[in-house]
């Protein structure tokens, strides 16, 4: 027979207390992405069929470089938060869940930094 009150076993293993920040970040990320996605689509359509030098010259323009940096940052932040929820919802094996959380964060950070270096190289080499 268990004499411990159920609340005693529940305490300390519940929410990580980070829900509100996660929720808010996901909302304002998505608002920025709604604004920037039409620009991104325009940029891709403008690059279609163009040669490498032309696309580089377009991306090297300060405003396009800045918008691409913001777009990439917001996109991977939004991705990381979204994948985090998917992992939390479907993966219930503790070691696998935490491994996936770490992989998710690392890969999203890696992709962001790779994109930032690529954009920087194009913008500063122009």
């Amino acid at each position, binding site marked *: 027979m268990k004499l411990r009150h159920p609340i005693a076993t529940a305490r300390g293993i519940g929410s990580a207390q980070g829900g509100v920040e996660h929720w808010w970040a996901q909302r304002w990320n998505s608002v920025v992405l709604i604004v920037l996605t039409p620009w991104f689509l325009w940029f891709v359509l403008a690059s279609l069929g163009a040669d490498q030098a032309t696309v580089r010259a377009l991306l090297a323009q300060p405003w396009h470089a800045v918008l691409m940096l913001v777009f990439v940052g917001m996109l991977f932040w939004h991705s990381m938060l979204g*994948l985090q929820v998917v992992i939390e919802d479907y993966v219930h094996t503790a070691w696998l869940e935490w491994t996936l959380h770490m992989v998710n964060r690392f890969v999203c950070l890696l992709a962001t930094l790779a994109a930032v270096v690529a954009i920087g190289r194009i913008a500063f080499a122009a």
Partner: protein
Amino acid sequence: MASPDRPLSPHLQIYRWQWTMALSILNRATGVALVAGAFGMVWWLLALAGDSAAYDDFAACLGSPLGIVATVGFMACLAFHFFNGIRHLLWDTGWGLDIPTAFRTAMIVIVLSVLSFAALAWLVFGGAA
């Protein structure tokens, strides 16, 4: 870490399929698919910053049958996730949570997604031909 012996709430196989539920699942599925598209975008940026061989490799992959299928898929996912995301943001303000409105906005999202996907596909493939 739910213990396996805990009773579970009824899941997908219990409920009758509804439009609102299908769109909710699609929102998550397209979101996950778009992450793959985001990595494709990073590949594009890296190829763009690299030498001409890197860019030619990327262009060859994008133009291959598999590349075209992936591009079309990402365009469809983006169109849907974009409009359904706006629907989610409207819900977050407290608007449109009643069932008739949620159903109506679901239909609006489907129509807008199909139209914008068609427009995008025409701009990408029709304009070049």
